[in-house]
């Protein structure tokens, strides 16, 4: 039965029509998979195209003369480097350098930025961002999360499908860039971004248009035919991001984990000037990390899951942050926190899987990298 206390995206009824198995995901009623199943959804995204409802993500506008300065003070990446029509991955950090949330920052103009944040943390982020805002910042903040739908079209066939539905030259949009345009006749933001490790697009539009766009994309992608587009649930979204070595908030990132520990040093721009948490991050960098995220694969049968302990000999040295079968690679993989001296590729480790210490080894991340990097 539908749980009325859960939040719903504008596509909730469509997911049910499609036979989606609905679960409580951070307070949202979301499809974990459709009848095709997680393996088929995952592999179809790698080989053809997958469609994802990510309307639960939060959208926060930062507008005004102080927009760039304000977001630069709250996040680790350097917003001043963005040009109009470009986006980047970043982190909101607290004074300790811990991650309040990871996010995308879109630059529409010098006084017009959009922050796209995680669903389960949208309210927390909004509280944090507004609490940091003072009159001298000269910005206007707007939590527009409920006004938008967000639909991700991902995979090698995504470009061909998206092209058919807009006059915007989407093939010219570079990776981590976006354009405003009409998509199936609806005012949209067409962003060449994603969370699957494939080429693809994320389409933002008014919530009321969600059903029209979703159905049109399925139709254009030949949903129902062999090799056609498949709607994908949260389970495939998770395995796709894990194979691609991307972080998931609450697993590789949290208020008590810094981006440096999570292997996200590339989004920490200490040279840009002070920002919230910069002092803590600078001293952590100088002192050296006590732990860092490393990839592993199991070298004997068995699957390590989240929170399994990691051992070397009989010494507990860390824990698994995300562990799962990898449907495309057909291996059992994961990410784990390890002391840096044990995080080198080839290091043999043991993982406690329900009492059995199973063999695994450290491997390089990403586990999967797509061959054709068009659009990047």
């Amino acid at each position, binding site marked *: 039965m539908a749980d009325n206390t859960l939040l719903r995206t504008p596509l909730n009824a469509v997911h049910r029509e499609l036979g989606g198995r609905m679960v409580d995901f951070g307070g949202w009623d979301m499809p*974990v*998979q459709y009848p095709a*199943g*997680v*393996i*088929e959804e995952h592999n179809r995204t790698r080989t053809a195209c997958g469609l994802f409802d990510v309307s639960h993500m939060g959208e926060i506008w930062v507008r005004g003369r102080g927009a760039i300065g304000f977001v630069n003070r709250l996040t680790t990446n350097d917003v001043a480097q963005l040009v109009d029509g470009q986006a980047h991955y970043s982190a909101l950090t607290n004074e300790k350098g811990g991650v309040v949330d990871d996010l995308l920052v879109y630059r529409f103009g010098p006084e017009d930025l959009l922050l796209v944040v995680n669903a389960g943390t949208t309210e927390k982020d909004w509280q944090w961002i507004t609490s940091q805002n003072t009159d001298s910042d000269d910005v206007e903040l707007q939590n527009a999360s409920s006004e938008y739908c967000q639909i991700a079209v991902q995979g090698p066939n995504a470009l061909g499908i998206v092209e058919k539905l807009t006059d915007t030259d989407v093939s010219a949009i570079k990776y981590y860039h976006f354009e405003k345009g009409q998509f199936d006749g609806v005012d949209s933001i067409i962003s060449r971004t994603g969370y699957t490790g494939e080429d693809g697009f994320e389409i933002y539009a008014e919530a009321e248009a969600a059903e029209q766009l979703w159905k049109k994309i399925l139709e254009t992608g030949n949903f129902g035919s062999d090799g056609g587009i498949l709607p994908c649930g949260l*389970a495939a979204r998770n*395995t796709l991001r894990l194979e691609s070595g991307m972080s998931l908030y609450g697993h590789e990132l949290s208020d008590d984990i810094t981006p440096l520990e999570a292997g996200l040093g590339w989004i920490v721009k200490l040279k840009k000037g002070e920002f919230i948490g910069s002092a803590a991050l600078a001293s952590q960098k100088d002192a050296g990390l006590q732990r860092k995220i490393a990839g592993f694969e199991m070298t004997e*049968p*068995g*699957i390590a*899951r989240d929170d399994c302990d990691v051992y070397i000999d009989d010494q507990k040295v860390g824990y698994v942050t995300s562990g*799962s*079968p990898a*449907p495309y690679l057909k291996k*059992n993989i994961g990410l784990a926190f390890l002391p840096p001296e044990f995080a080198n590729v080839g290091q043999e480790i043991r993982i406690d899987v*329900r009492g059995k210490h199973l063999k695994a080894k450290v491997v390089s991340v990403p586990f999967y990298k797509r061959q054709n990097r068009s659009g990047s």
Partner: protein
Amino acid sequence: MANIPENLRYSKDHEWVSVEGDVAAIGITDYAQHSLGDVVYIDMPRVGDKFSTHEAFGSVESVKAVSEIFTPIAGEILEVNDGLNDTPEAVNDDPYSAGWMIKIKMDNPNEADKLLSSVEYEEYLAASE
């Protein structure tokens, strides 16, 4: 609706049992495989291992979850379905036939009579929905 063949016996842990003489073939039900999702790995016992009633004899892992599997009936393992190492998806595609997991020599061949009939199992599922 879950498929529940009439000729089998069922446990409340969603295993099925097919009895022939003093040998019981055991697997998980259609309902169980559907709840688990795509099965990717099955941890099985060895031939000769002995289990009492309602003892965990192994586990079934899907992409998202792991679930222990229990012996509805006490006895000694005669045979395990090694084919599932290569084709664990048989548990999803054909849970009552190709997806069988173990064959047990029953300590007490009458024990299967205590398990649920197909009608009782269907009622049990309906009540636990």
